[in-house]
């Protein structure tokens, strides 16, 4: 990167470090930080959407829909999340291929699951066998995002279901007394009010989501954990201009600090949002704010 980096073996500590930290591979690691941020940016709204849908389904009047919502939200309790991650990545992949197989090759008569193989016709492969590398990577990332959204959607559904139950009953009764239909009551009264009650749970969920991002590594995405292992490992002078011993400990220490700072910043921001939202609310928090101002 810098002009003096042509022969790293002659450099002393600080200059060496500045060259070392700006190599191409390190740049890839910095990019992977954005992969994590991108995952968060896509997953959070998707999980909210899944959660909202499931929470709504859980209080539906249609019995099968209610069962579906309840089953979805309660099935993640009691089972380790990482099992879900490992499960969904394969299951989703196979599910998509199976669906495409059904659509694209209707006259295929051999079984798909043969012993230990899962065989679909070539046209149904995801991504296609001749697809370029970036398609494979994007597809992997997409699967990861969907997996995160499904798992966190269930958590979010829990929080939002609770929030919907907490909205004072009298509010809904008033709406009914005004002659609003169920649908109107839901959209005009319940949904606008539930957010104050949902926010503490959702901000907790955000923290949990941040801390779940290193699991991307298990889903086969080249994320920061992958690069930290890769770059931190012992580098042989024969293959690199920057030989060093086993530095993985320092790389993971850096990741630890990164995540600590990330959660700290989120905490501060979420605190601010909560302060703003509680302003003027008839809750303990709002009351405390009013008293402090007076």
């Amino acid at each position, binding site marked *: 990167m810098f002009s003096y980096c042509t022969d790293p073996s002659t450099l002393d500590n600080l200059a060496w470090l500045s060259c070392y930290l700006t190599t191409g591979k390190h740049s890839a690691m910095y990019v992977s930080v954005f992969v994590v941020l991108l995952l968060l940016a896509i997953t959070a709204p998707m999980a909210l959407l899944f959660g909202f849908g499931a929470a709504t389904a859980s209080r539906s009047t249609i019995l099968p829909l209610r069962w579906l919502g309840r089953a979805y939200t309660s099935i*993640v*309790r*009691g*089972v*380790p*999340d*990482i*099992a879900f991650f*490992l*499960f969904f990545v*394969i*299951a989703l992949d*196979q599910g998509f291929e199976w669906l495409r197989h059904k659509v694209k090759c209707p006259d295929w008569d051999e079984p798909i*699951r043969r012993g*230990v*193989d*899962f065989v679909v016709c070539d046209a149904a492969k995801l991504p296609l066998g001749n697809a370029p590398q970036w398609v494979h990577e994007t597809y992997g990332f997409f699967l990861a995002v969907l997996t995160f959204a499904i798992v966190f959607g269930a*958590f979010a559904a*829990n929080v939002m279901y609770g929030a919907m139950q907490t909205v004072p009953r009298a509010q809904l009764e008033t709406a009914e007394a005004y002659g609003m239909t169920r649908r109107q009551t839901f959209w005009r009264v319940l949904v606008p009010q539930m957010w104050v009650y949902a926010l503490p749970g959702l901000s*907790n*969920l955000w923290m*949990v989501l*941040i*801390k*779940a*991002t*290193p*699991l991307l*590594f*298990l889903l086969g995405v080249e994320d920061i*954990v992958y690069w*930290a*292992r890769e770059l*931190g490992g012992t580098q042989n002078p024969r293959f690199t201009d920057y030989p060093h011993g*086993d530095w*993985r*400990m320092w790389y*993971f*220490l850096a*990741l*630890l600090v990164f*995540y*600590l700072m990330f*959660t*700290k910043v989120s905490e501060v921001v979420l605190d601010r949002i909560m302060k703003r939202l509680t302003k003027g609310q008839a809750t303990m928090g709002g009351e405390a704010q009013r008293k402090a101002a007076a």
Partner: protein
Amino acid sequence: MSCLQTISDYAFRSLGYGERLLPRGDFTLCQQFTLIGSGMIWNVYFGVLALLAGFFLAVTLAVGKSSANPMARKPAEWFIFVFRGSPLFIQFFFGYFLFLSLKSVSSVFDPFTSAALGALVVLFLNTSAYTAEIFYGALLSIPKGDVEAADAYGMTGFKRFRRITFPTMLRLAWPSYTNEAIFLFHATTLVFFSGFPALRQKGDALYYASYFADKTFNPFVPYPILAGYFILLTLVLIGLFGVANRRLNRHMPQTKLPRMKFRLNLIR
């Protein structure tokens, strides 16, 4: 091969007893049940030991955090912040590589690079931090009257803590502590996916489940089996902690007993 034969071969495979090689082809349901169940031994081992040891450190940390003396408060606050603010997954990695580096300094650290001890230390510290935060919250919500009554009886210092503060804290914290315990057992599945090596394929339940999923390319059998085991474990935990909860609350008016509410948010 009969199922009984399989069980005798693989029931303690996770500890290194029985058949040396894992099944290679023609996976039967029995094999999957046995091996994944065998892996649960590790999950229970990590969970129980970390929970027991973590309890004592957590009480110390919670008392430290609620102390007025900054010399006690600051370290406790930092400890809790560091372990609750960063992903357990990264903590495992860092712990493993830390122990690996320390190994070259002194042979004392040799056993720490194995999952059995190294991962246990990380889990112990992690659960201590989470539990300490729960206990700290409970300490803050102890009714003022209880402490005033203790003062009126002339109890001070350690006596007041042992007779009033500590039991009340435990009673208030118990439902959340139950969640933390369940949560910890789930977290134990991360161990063998985070640097710590599974020597001679001696792994935990998830390790074997993912082994089967990889080999058969069919996730729909091993993971539900794993889920079944964990739901069973969770039910046992809820049962045990429920007994303790009833004992902690035995002096309270029984009609007003707060229902234990299990709010699980996994992943740390």
